[in-house]
């Protein structure tokens, strides 16, 4: 089936999968956003316990999606993996550091004799929430603004500044995306609390957080989109593979790929609809509208970054070192083999959906936690 596809078609197929994984990751980072709200929404231990336990039943999904996102990128576009991870060393290390802290915090927080005390684990969760959202957003921002690297004729890469990735945070557009993701996930995290927790006070405070974070998110998101649509983009000449700067490249990509543009518009409208439902009407299904919108919007942004003859990981040090999906990809054979593995994805989504449904059938409440022996 996949053997008959051209290399170019397989590269596009895999870029679509990567884009989808990236979009799902941003959706699932409501866990991280929620973690940054532990001290704001909860005012006592009982409330904090409800928040932590609601997120604690989902944290592994975001964690696993990040690992799979990394693995899939490695297998399908290894030149990106080697260039970005080896070059933007510090930004990735800080992101990973946050996830290390997260992985132990839920399980250890309330265990007797836990050495550091519950407060420290809650701070760990906050750190993970902050670093993961802002830095992943900032790192993805470089897909549109570029990074200072050089790739030699043997495809071995070097980062040309000693800040090794931290320089990305100095770029307004990168930072606006990082902050947009931060406030977006705080908004979706608040919506999740309303969906998952049976507690009037928490729901009321969460609704307030939806309003505040939603508005701040909109400011940064519009700033990012404004800059994106008006900036020069990194275009590839399909005949020569030469990279050049094209005015309004990303706007052109949207217009030249109407389906992607529609996805983007529907996504943004769903996010706005969910925001209004959550912030003003206090509806618990706001979460599902918003996260569907998040997936569509992020998915379309990834597609705009890599398709339609665009360099998805541009170099602002040496334009010709920029990575395109054609240059960065694995071989036809590997992409084919991996494509067969990708057929498992619907089954994975099915059992995740089942697990989500059975575990959230009944909202988390104080009495529900008392019944459960495994409590964070």
């Amino acid at each position: 089936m996949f053997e008959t596809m051209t290399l170019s078609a397989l590269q596009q197929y895999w870029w679509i999968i990567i884009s989808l994984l990236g979009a799902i990751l941003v959706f699932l980072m409501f866990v991280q956003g929620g973690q940054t709200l532990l001290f704001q929404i909860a005012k006592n231990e009982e409330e904090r316990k409800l928040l932590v336990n609601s997120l604690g039943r989902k944290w592994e999904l975001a964690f696993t999606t990040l690992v799979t996102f990394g693995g899939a990128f490695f297998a399908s576009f290894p030149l990106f993996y080697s260039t970005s991870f080896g070059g933007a060393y510090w930004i990735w290390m800080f992101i990973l550091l946050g996830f290390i802290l997260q992985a132990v915090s839920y399980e250890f927080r309330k265990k007797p004799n836990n050495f550091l005390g519950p407060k420290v684990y809650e701070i760990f969760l906050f750190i993970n929430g902050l670093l993961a959202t802002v830095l992943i957003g900032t790192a993805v921002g470089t897909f549109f603004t570029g990074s200072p690297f050089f790739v030699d004729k043997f495809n071995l890469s070097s980062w040309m500044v000693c800040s090794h990735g931290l320089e990305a945070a100095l770029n307004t557009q990168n930072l606006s995306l990082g902050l947009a993701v931060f406030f977006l996930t705080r908004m979706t995290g608040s919506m999740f609390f309303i969906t998952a927790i049976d507690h009037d006070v928490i729901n009321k405070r969460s609704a307030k957080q939806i309003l505040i974070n939603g508005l701040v998110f909109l400011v940064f998101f519009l700033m990012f989109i404004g800059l994106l649509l008006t900036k020069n983009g990194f275009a590839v000449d399909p005949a020569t593979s030469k990279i050049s700067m094209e005015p309004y490249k990303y706007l052109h990509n949207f217009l030249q790929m109407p389906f992607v543009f529609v996805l983007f518009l529907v996504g943004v409208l769903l996010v706005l609809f969910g925001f209004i439902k959550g912030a003003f009407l206090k509806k618990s299904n706001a979460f599902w509208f918003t996260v569907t919108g998040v997936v569509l919007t992020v998915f379309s942004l990834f597609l705009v970054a890599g398709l339609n003859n665009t360099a998805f990981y541009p170099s602002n040090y040496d334009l010709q070192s920029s990575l395109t999906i054609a240059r960065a990809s694995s071989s036809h054979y590997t992409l084919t083999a991996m494509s067969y593995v990708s057929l498992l994805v619907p089954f994975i989504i099915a059992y995740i959906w089942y697990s989500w449904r059975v575990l959230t059938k009944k909202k988390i409440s104080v009495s529900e936690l008392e019944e459960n022996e495994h409590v964070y």
Partner: protein
Amino acid sequence: MHLADISLVDWSRAQFALTAIYHWLFVPLTLGLSFIIAIMESIYIKTGNEEWKKLTKFWMTIFGINFAIGAATGIILEFEFGTNWSNYSWMVGDIFGAPLAIEGIMAFFLESTFIAIMFFGWSKVGKKTHLLSTWMVAIGSNLSALWILVANAWMNNPVGMVFNPDTARNEMVNFWDVALSPFAINKFLHTITSSYVVAALFVIGVCSWYLLKKRQIVFSKRSMAIAVIFGLLSSLFLAFTGDSSAYQVAQKQPMKLAAMEGLYKGQEGTGLVAFGVLNHKKKAGDNLEEYLFKIEIPKMLSLLSYRDANAFVPGIEDIVYGNWHYNIEPVSKRMERGTQAIISLTKYKDSKEKNDTAAMNSALTEFKQTRSDLGYGYLDKPESIIPNVPLTFYSFHVMVILGFYFILLFVVILYFVLRNTIERKKFLLRLALITIPLGYIASELGWIVAEVGRQPWAIQDILPVSKATSHLSASSVQITFVLFAILFTILLITELRILFKQIKIGPKE
């Protein structure tokens, strides 16, 4: 040694070793305990006896604590291939990335989805669905091990690929050769069974402590019965897979085998060193004795390595300096061809940039004649293919001795468990308790043999570690090394404190 004296390569290796060693402190228990829990829950479902549910829930709590820190140390390992070994990621990513991605898609989601049902689903799903979830967690954990071990086996025995001069990397040509190579199958079976042994020793050790304290008698005897049968079967299989793993090493990594045995001069009908003390002054090419003392089983190494008691087993000096009598070429020859391969590849790339087809074809022809030795072109001297012999030798021998000790221990414990007198055997219980760390030590030593014994190669005969690193400053890696060392140590202390406390509290009535 002053920190700055150590190169980027050494710091990158140190950081990876640190992360891998910490990670492997938690993985074996996850792999083995997940099955032990699944077996216990199966008995609960079959018998309906609430005591088995109590057992299951207690070991699940222990599993959860251990799993969390395993995940924390595991995430960094995957990304370190990119952050610290970026040249490696490009040069072999076409092959190596696939099992890592499959691990995520096939195993991690299975594990992380069903673990939520396993912990929180007792009152939310039916008993059988819950049991299925517990088995899925066990299968997911072990599938994860399968794919990462396939990837690691490929580093030791690179198959199913070809070097593409256009992309300047190795590319996969046969997925099944990579996934189902005898090396990969042996590595997987040997590693997971060693993990089952560690988990069994852990459960037996904890139960021994309870019995010594005269607490949780029924709980402990039942847990012990499951663990000792699981452990004994696993350890017997472990010995079998150990033999086939060593056989694979003899065929594919003769230098590693020579280092494991401290064998400098090869001979026919070579004996196996059961116990020995190396002469630390010994260097390849000198006339010093290899051992200060050794007890040897005659002809056994030849028999185990080549299934022929009189077979020639090459030593370190045969491999480095060559032995024409046995058709072993000196490394210097391979280095010459490797250097030529690099020159031809560079010529090919230069000619391609200039669109000089004739020069391209000529360079490509030259390259094809020497490409199998490309990796040797990056070595600085023939002796650099010798790994750290004492570390490999002692790690291997201590691991093997411990492996046989574990079999004996399981047999003795099983005997007293069957006679229902185990709680009276204080010495045996104490021995079982102090054996817990020995299980971990043996398991870590196995990895030291596998990884140190492969040096200087990141990919055996293809890519040395010196060519595989990212272009970073050594100071950047020093900082992250120290950061991870502190963080992982704090987390380990925390984990142990929590674990000890949970064990002290015991199962909930």
